[in-house]
């Protein structure tokens, strides 16, 4: 029960902490001070107390989309494996509901972007849609491979890698890289997208929320941070040893999540952004890694009867 409570606590604290740490790493790399680490929390509290300006062109879709996006992402997070791979909501095949809830959030964010009738938001929406077309199948291939290898169907057990052969190391390494790529893509970090760029023609996620203000903006920023934390939690679930006691896991998860944030910060400090037309090829790396895991799963399993 405590694991579930910790899950919910981390759900509230870690996403924005990760963003704070990424900004701090980038500031240190640039030799400057930059935002305080708790700035995302402060920004969100301010935004919740601000008014909003809504475009005349938009309809109820624009008003409803942020709330749906946040609700769907939070529910998805409750399903995802947290401390010691325990889940708040767990059942067989819950990984499908988790990823499809993220799909629902993306559906309404895309609609809300198109609702404003501005070419910037349409551009952001079409880019975001394209990248998820490449990333989503990779996630399902990876999930299917884990099911093939472990024989389980629930999120927590799927991500428990066990077995004598070299399979767990292959799956863990390929899986971590793939999930980290997904974290960079879904969390709109460099080299795919640059969150604090001030050029509306190059933004992707930022430009989709160009017209949201006040509480809506707070919801959408929290949803984006949650998504990034989700993939960090999955990496943690993948890496941590199968039989880790809950107490150790309670410390291990935040540390790994924050390490992911530092890694993302370092990637952002060293890499430049890819040209927009080259990003899909970069994302096919995720699909390739999933296929490698599948091939190694079949190989190592030796084809059980």
């Amino acid at each position, binding site marked *: 029960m405590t694991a579930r409570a910790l899950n919910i606590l981390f759900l509230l604290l870690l996403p924005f902490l990760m963003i704070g740490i990424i900004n701090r790493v980038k500031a240190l790399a640039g030799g400057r001070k930059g935002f305080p680490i708790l700035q995302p929390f402060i920004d969100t509290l301010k935004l919740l107390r601000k008014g909003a300006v809504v475009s005349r062109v938009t309809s109820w879709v624009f008003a409803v989309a942020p709330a749906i996006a946040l609700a769907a992402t939070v529910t998805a997070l409750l399903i995802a494996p947290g401390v010691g791979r325990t889940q708040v909501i767990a059942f067989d095949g819950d990984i499908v509901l988790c990823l499809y809830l993220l799909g629902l959030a993306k559906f309404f964010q895309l609609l809300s972007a198109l609702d404003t009738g501005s070419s910037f938001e349409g551009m952001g929406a079409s880019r975001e849609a394209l990248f998820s077309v490449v990333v989503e199948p990779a996630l399902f291939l990876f999930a299917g491979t884990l099911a093939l290898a472990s024989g389980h169907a629930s999120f927590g057990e799927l991500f428990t890698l066990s077995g004598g052969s070299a399979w767990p190391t292959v799956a863990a390494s390929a899986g971590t890289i793939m999930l980290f790529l997904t974290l960079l893509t879904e969390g709109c970090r460099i080299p795919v997208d*640059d969150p604090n760029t001030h*050029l509306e*023609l190059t933004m992707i996620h930022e430009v989709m929320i160009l017209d949201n203000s006040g509480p809506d903006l707070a919801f959408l920023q929290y949803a984006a941070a949650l998504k990034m934390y989700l993939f960090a939690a999955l990496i943690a679930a993948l890496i941590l040893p199968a039989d880790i006691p809950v107490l150790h896991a309670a410390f291990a998860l935040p540390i790994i999540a924050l390490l992911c944030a530092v890694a993302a910060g370092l990637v952002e400090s060293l890499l430049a952004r890819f040209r927009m037309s080259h990003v899909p090829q970069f994302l096919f790396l995720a699909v390739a890694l999933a296929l490698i895991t599948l091939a190694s799963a079949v190989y190592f399993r030796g084809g059980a009867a």
Partner: protein
Amino acid sequence: MDRVLLKNRAAIPFDDLPKISYQAMGDIAIGCLCAGLRPVALFGVPEERPAGAVRIIALFADDVKGTLAVTSVHAERGATVPSLTPSIPAFHLFERQLWEEFGIVPQDHPWLKPVRYPHDGHTPRRVEEGYRYFAMNGEESHEVAVGPVHAGVIEPGHFRFLCDGERVNHLEIQLGYQHRGAERLFRTGPLAMKSVLAESVSGDAAVAHATAYAGLVEALGNSAIPRRAAVIRAIGLELERAGIHLGDLSALCNDIGYLPGTQLFAVMRTDIINTSLALCGSRFGRGLIAPGGVMHDIDEKKKERIASTVRRVRDNAGLLAASVFDNQNVLARFEKTGTVDTATARAIGLVGPAGRASGLPCDIRLTHPTDAYSDHPLIKTVLQNGEGKAAISGDVYARAFVRHQEIQDSLRYITELLGRLDAVQDGIAAPVERPRAGMVAFSITEGWRGETLHAAVTGDQGETLRYYIKDASFHNWFGLALAVRENGVSDFPLCNKSFNLSYCGFDL
């Protein structure tokens, strides 16, 4: 004689100007082009004798012999003249400006649209009214309108992209939002008291405009300035050039999200402009230059400060630029983005670093040197890029590499000038005579963005009849519009920053 030859920063009597027909001026222009001359200015001067008449003054520059050729045309307001743009595209914006200010209609000009919506123009109008945009056929293509207020902290201008998906088919740039009527203010009050106004024409090229303005006033008054003041002016100009180029390299890295380049170049820029602050009390060199010389001397302490900063920045910039221009990740974004080939660049008359990056040899400091540049000629080094070729491919990479090259040249030249300071001890300012009556004068300086021209025509009591300013952006905006075609729309900010053109220098 259909033209008069003169040097840079010289004044000639207005009446000596030959009067020829517009078409004849066109033939001269074509002749000049063949001989390698290029059009530098074309502007109208309102004449009193037949009320409503306009004297159009045309100036061409010969980069080989270092001379300027000027001629003039007599025309009525609202007259129709055969347009020169079809044969010489470089005239396209000049003719639009003439039509907007004096109503002189260029016959079958391919792109006759307002330039800057001046409040005192032929038909004064607010921006965006009556501007018909070039449109694309087919419902599947869409337009992206990046309006006056941009996402970053930059001056306003409207960019209309015609796109199909992510590819840009055509870009049309409409400016005029920054129009404050600067030229009119130069005409009111004593001309010699306008140095603060000259620095505010385009804030990021304050020293260049101030130098051109001061040179013009001195040319009209036929007064010379002390050689020490000339050296200090050159030091101020080169400091501004190095500072802005470092800022541009930082901004280019920022547009592709390359954090090390952004932060490190930005700090070097701060070093350089803090040196300007130490020199003249303003990070942008404002208050350094006034007609007759300079306002701040360089004593031993300042000389040491400038020398040490310049040495440190030159070393650090060289090291960082080497690593940035060697980084595959960065090159993948810079190369083949926003290309303007040499032929197109020459046709539309690109100037400054943008022109040099497309292979045009246009640099006023070498071709029409004045003050310190004539006494102590600048030797430009041609650095080879990674493949050992001069970077004149006309893309973002070339424009960035030219900037890196010019930073190294400017900082080396400053060190040389500091060395010459001891040799020239003739004071920093000389008295300025009043502008002579009935004269026309041109003063061109090589600002960091390219040639910056100030021209003036004085009436019979020495009052300023017409004050004409042409910033290098006047030529290069059309280069940006061409560079973006066939590129991804997400690469536009990179091309825009590689040009880094002035909006207020264009709108005045």
